[in-house]
């Protein structure tokens, strides 16, 4: 099998989820296995290309290590190739773990994250410039220095946000609104660590209470798209839950909306936040299978061997042993079964 050549511009632009990054650092070329669930996800995207994003709001769920982030990444790559406008946030926890500065905006009564917004705008332009260079602004938005009016190029508005950090959150919200109106390109909004949008952030308000995620500008906007309150005329919203960080676990409202078993047993008398229930309404659960099939695992085994990363023999017996030890779980198979054969 020959790998087609290509540069990984989008990959470098948006960045990767942490667990995916580790694998890609070890492999000489980034690659991932196409699974049955990938094909289903890409089918969904194809169907969603013509309809509003309110109809296609899916969240990848499954056991830890089953490959949710990878499927989301594959969907993002596919969307980029299919000329969708793509906004991908690989580490949703970076939004809520107070790693970037935050500023209260009295106009929207939310906390903006200027540095994060500016960086996200830059990345967005890096990936989607070719597509949006001909788009024009359709609404008018009040910005501090210049007011953007209709039929000026969208790129100009984005550049305002890139140049001045303090207006970046407003520009980002405006950009998303613009993308929701235009019908030329379908838009994909993809968020890894989706549960971070529904949790308490580690930012503090002046009373030293923890700021809720939906009181931050960007997460709030993302939640509105995720819940269907705002929607792209053409496109989809995809999310992927992650269990890596135990500080940000999916809350009860989200697990109930997705039909998952809650981590902690609950009952009808446990308080559920009505805002979160609203923001989680209509989300569709897209389960990712727990086990890799033998063929998929064999492909991964082959890749790691071709990179000469493993110190075990290349054979059926070793492969089946490692597969059985991992129980078919993708992360266990790669990290524990295969990579631990290499003495670090």
């Amino acid at each position, binding site marked *: 099998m020959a790998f087609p050549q290509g540069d990984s511009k989008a990959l470098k632009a948006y960045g990767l989820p942490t667990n995916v990054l580790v694998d890609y650092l070890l492999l000489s070329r980034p690659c991932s*296995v196409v699974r049955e669930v990938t094909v289903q996800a890409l089918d969904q995207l194809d169907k969603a290309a013509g309809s509003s994003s309110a109809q296609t709001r899916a969240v990848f769920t499954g056991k830890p290590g089953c490959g949710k982030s990878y499927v989301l990444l594959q969907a993002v790559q596919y969307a980029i190739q299919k000329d969708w406008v793509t906004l991908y946030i690989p580490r949703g926890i970076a939004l809520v773990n107070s790693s970037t500065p935050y500023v209260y905006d009295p106009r929207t009564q939310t906390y903006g994250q200027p540095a994060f917004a500016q960086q996200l705008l830059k990345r967005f332009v890096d990936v989607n410039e070719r597509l949006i260079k001909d788009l024009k602004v359709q609404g008018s938005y009040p910005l501090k220095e210049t007011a953007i009016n209709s039929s000026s190029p969208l790129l100009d508005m984005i550049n305002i946000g890139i140049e001045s950090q303090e207006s970046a959150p407003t520009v980002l919200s405006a950009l998303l609104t613009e993308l929701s109106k235009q019908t030329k390109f379908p838009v994909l909004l993809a968020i890894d660590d989706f549960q971070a949008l529904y949790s308490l952030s580690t930012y503090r308000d002046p009373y030293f209470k923890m700021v809720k995620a939906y009181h931050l500008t960007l997460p709030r906007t993302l939640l509105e798209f995720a819940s269907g309150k705002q929607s792209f005329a053409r496109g989809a919203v995809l999310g992927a839950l992650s269990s890596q960080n135990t500080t940000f676990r999916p809350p009860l409202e989200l697990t109930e909306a997705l039909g998952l078993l809650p981590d902690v047993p609950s009952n009808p008398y446990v308080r559920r936040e009505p805002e979160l229930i609203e923001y989680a309404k209509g989300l569709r659960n897209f389960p990712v299978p727990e086990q890799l099939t033998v063929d998929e695992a064999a492909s991964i085994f082959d890749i790691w061997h071709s990179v000469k990363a493993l110190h075990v023999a290349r054979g059926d017996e070793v492969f089946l042993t490692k597969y059985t*030890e991992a129980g078919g779980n993708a992360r266990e198979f790669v990290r524990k079964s295969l990579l631990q054969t290499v003495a670090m």
Partner: protein
Amino acid sequence: MNIARHVAKSAFRFRTYATTAYVPPASLATLQRARVPPPKPKPESPTFYTGRATYYDQLLALESAAKHTRSALQELELLPLPRFAQENLPPLYGVWKNKLDLGELMSAKLTTSRYRRFIAQLNQLNEYRRLAEVAGHVELAERIQRVLGMFERDNKDAILARGKRKPVKFDEYGRSYTIGRRKESTARCWVIAAQPAEGESASSATPSEATEEVTTEVTASQTPDVPESSSPPAIAASIEGFESPAPSVKVSTTNILINNIPLSEYFPHVSDRERVVRPFRIAGLLGAYNVFAIVRGGGSTGQSGAVTLAIAKALAAHAPDVEPLLRKAKLLKRDPRMVERKKTGRAKARKAYTWVKR
């Protein structure tokens, strides 16, 4: 009259002395004769006069049985046996009644030397029985067994089965149930043969078949669109770089559940997982069986060791051919090592307190 007869007899026998008392002829008429005693019955066997009739009867019966068997075996050319045949006979186990029980059977207390003599005869007959059995003369062997059976202990089977493992039973679904132990842990394990993987043979070009996985470069700008038909072989067929996708392999896999949790989740350490999978590796039965185990007690090493032993026993039951392999690999042995107790005068089992010179 009797006396006269007696005298006559004695005279006839040329005896010069009188054997009976002298009675004058005048008193002969008034002589009172003793009543004729009833004729004593002859004893059934000459051993009556030995005082331990039953014992000697049995002994003589055994000896005659041995004689007859010997001649029968000689006729069948089984005696004398060449040395190599003698060496290769299966081992002989005689579980005879003890001296007290045998004495009860004989209704006479047995002395040790008499008991030993009896047992020696039994052993001799037992050897002939073994010979007949091994040579295939079932009827002869059965006849000898009928004789010997009277003198065997009641719990003979139980005694012979001591030290031997009970055979592993299978239920109506073909599951084996085995128990393994290590340190303080106990594992109960049900092993069932895995269903062979369903699927068509490895013709990979048909699009609508079961999954066949291909790797793609994630961000290749030249990668063409994924077609509407939803299967990886179809994708593979349309992508430029791929000439022919790898043929699909249908292999059944071993699923191991421990306390209803998958192996990789239950044992985070790789060494524990490798230990559990080791019996399959050595037997070469990876993918052949599925395992469900319930394990209690101990820590991760103990629990993984217990599950290993249970799985090894189960594999030996499902596939008896692999038993020598597992035995050689010491997987069928219950590791007897346990935590050593702390002793007085020592900090731990072996660790001593710091030695002070003064």
